[in-house]
């Protein structure tokens, strides 16, 4: 009997071993790379799933960058090819697909993930492999770990700050607003912005009457809207993504709740938002980490490209399209500035120089964050998401107040 067991075990071990060796055998062989071989840039994006609308724009922006870089001679002479995987917002996929990009596809560079949770999931992996990882950043949490290769640009906590700033400095508006309702998704993005909302509410003497959280995906906003409606809060902060944001607006319409100020965190700046909601979108405040109507270098060409390829009627390219271009642009500046494809050289260059990008000049600190706080709260006016109340950037425009009837 023992003998049979031994045999079974031996067969088993052999199977394991053989499988391992076969996978090892299938490894791509190292080759000498001729100069015309393209540089591979790898990334994952949640193209499907609850973050899809904004991720799609990021992807379009990055594809424009690839086209443009190749048209202008490539990165230090070599053309660029992008490998993109859809991670659907799932943490497992974000990690395993990034690892696949690095170890199996053998990409030369990576771009950071999206959204904040994706960045948090992928940062440790990028750090372990020593690869420069440029993304929107989102949350300072991972950056506090002392990661050296990660670069961020925007913290979720800055989300509603410009809008609150405007309220505070406009007396006729401020005295009109006494109460605030906050509905936030239960993740880094929502929770960090919520902290900011609470701080500012306290600062301005505004009472927070509803403060609820929900897990994504949100199935129904009805239960929460009952509370918000009962509170008749003046300010409605919907710290949500696209789909849950739309659900909340619809619930507000259905239950006839009319706020004086309505803020929808992520998604309202995409063209799909206005398409989906039409006139109902009018007056919605949103967030942006880029100024559409500023005159930074190359920005005009980005707007022109969007008009030509996607929407001839648009005044500007959507913010997320600009950002889609921005992240690889920073990588490009790093490579060209360092004169090398080496990750460490790129990292060091980016942390020791002020660089000029489509969102302005950026100086990265050693912790990977910029010195500059670049945050806007545009508003949807006449169907366009435009900058308001920030005269130091572009054309000053008066915000629409109070929020129009649904």
């Amino acid at each position, binding site marked *: 009997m023992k003998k049979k067991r031994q045999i079974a075990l031996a067969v088993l071990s052999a199977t394991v071993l053989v499988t391992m060796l076969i996978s090892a055998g299938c490894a791509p062989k190292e080759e000498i790379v001729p100069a015309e071989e393209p540089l591979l840039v790898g990334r994952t994006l949640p193209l499907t*799933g609850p973050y899809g609308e904004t991720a799609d724009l990021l992807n379009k922006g990055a594809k424009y960058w690839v086209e443009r870089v190749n048209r202008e001679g490539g990165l230090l002479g070599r053309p660029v090819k992008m490998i993109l995987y859809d991670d659907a917002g799932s943490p497992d996929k974000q990690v395993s697909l990034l690892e696949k990009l690095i170890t199996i596809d053998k990409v030369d560079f990576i771009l950071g993930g999206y959204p904040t949770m994706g960045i948090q999931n992928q940062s440790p992996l990028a750090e372990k492999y020593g690869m420069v990882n440029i993304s929107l950043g989102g949350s300072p949490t991972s950056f506090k770990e002392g990661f050296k290769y990660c670069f961020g640009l925007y913290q979720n906590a800055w989300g509603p700050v410009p809008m609150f700033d405007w309220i505070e400095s406009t007396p006729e508006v401020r005295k009109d607003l006494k109460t605030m309702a906050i509905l936030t998704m239960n993740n880094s993005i929502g929770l960090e912005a919520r902290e900011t909302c609470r701080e500012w509410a306290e600062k301005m003497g505004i009472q927070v009457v509803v403060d609820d*959280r929900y*897990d994504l995906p949100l199935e*129904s906003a009805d239960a929460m809207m*009952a*509370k918000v409606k*009962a509170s008749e809060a003046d300010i409605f902060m919907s710290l949500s993504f696209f789909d849950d944001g739309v659900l909340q607006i619809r619930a507000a319409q259905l239950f006839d709740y009319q706020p004086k100020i309505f803020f929808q965190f992520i998604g309202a700046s995409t063209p799909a938002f206005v398409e989906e909601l039409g006139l109902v979108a009018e007056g919605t405040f949103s967030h942006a980490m880029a100024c559409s109507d500023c005159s930074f270098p190359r920005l005009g060409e980005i707007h022109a490209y969007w008009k030509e390829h996607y929407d001839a009627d648009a005044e500007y390219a959507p913010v997320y399209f600009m950002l889609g271009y921005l992240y690889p642009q920073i990588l490009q500046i790093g490579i060209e500035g360092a004169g090398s494809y080496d990750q460490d050289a790129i990292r060091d260059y980016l942390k020791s120089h002020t660089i000029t990008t489509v969102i302005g000049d950026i100086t990265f600190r050693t912790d990977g964050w910029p010195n500059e706080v670049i945050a806007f709260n545009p508003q949807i006016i006449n169907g366009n998401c435009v900058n308001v109340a920030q005269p130091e950037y572009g054309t000053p425009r008066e915000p629409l107040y109070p929020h129009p009837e649904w």
Partner: protein
Amino acid sequence: MGYILTQSAIGGVVMGVAYGIMAGGYTMVWGAMRVINFAHAAFGVLAAYAVFYLLKVCGLDPLLSLVVVIPGLFALGVIMQELLIRPLANRARDITSASVVATLGVSILIENAMLYSFSPTPRFIATSYSLKSFSVLSLTIPATYLIVLGLGIISMGGLSFFLSRTRIGRGIRAVWQDEDGALLSGINPSLVNRIGYGIALATAGIGGVAMCLIQSFVASAQLSWMLLVWVIATFGGIGSVKGAVLGGIAIGVILNVGSVFIPRAYVTVIVYAIIIALLLIRPQGLFGNKASLR
């Protein structure tokens, strides 16, 4: 406060009815065939996608799409009974345990097929009446709520009627209560099982239609829908359609009204604890009877 409580309770009742429709079919199969169909809600989500695409492509109203959903899911039910449940019943030592794992597998299969075909983007149903509502006193009753209530009354009333008044329905109950006796009275158990399963999945489909009218859905929702369906059926009682509906309403109200006071997640954990306690003290549920468990 009164407004919030009443409005939440109304939302809870309607949500509970929608879940209850699904729980009704589930509990019938559980009682009659001792089969725990963990894929029940996955079929509901499938029906919701059918509604979505029929609306998008043909402009078909969700209620009219029932014409497609009901026979379609009935057919799937018969197929599932023949391909999976019957062979399982013949081979397994304990059909109930075996069915949990086997149908869990089926639910994973269906969920991922749907994920691949329809993508993980959340969907909602927007019809001309999605944003219409009625004002009663100071309360808001969306039109969709009334439709779901109507669906619940018709489908569960129909199911009850079927089980107690029609020949086949009574056959299902007879097989459940006394299999040998049923055989002796000339009832054909395989026909009865096939029809029973078909009807169960058809009601899962109706439940799915009801659900998509009041909330957004996505392929991976099948697991959270199923957990709640199972909780409601366990609460309401094995085999009891009445229990499923009342249990649904009870759980729906507890979840909604509870979340006015404490975060919804905690209410959910409390509900789980209640169910575990129930499984220990009275595993046949409120309206089930003990004999059905063995």
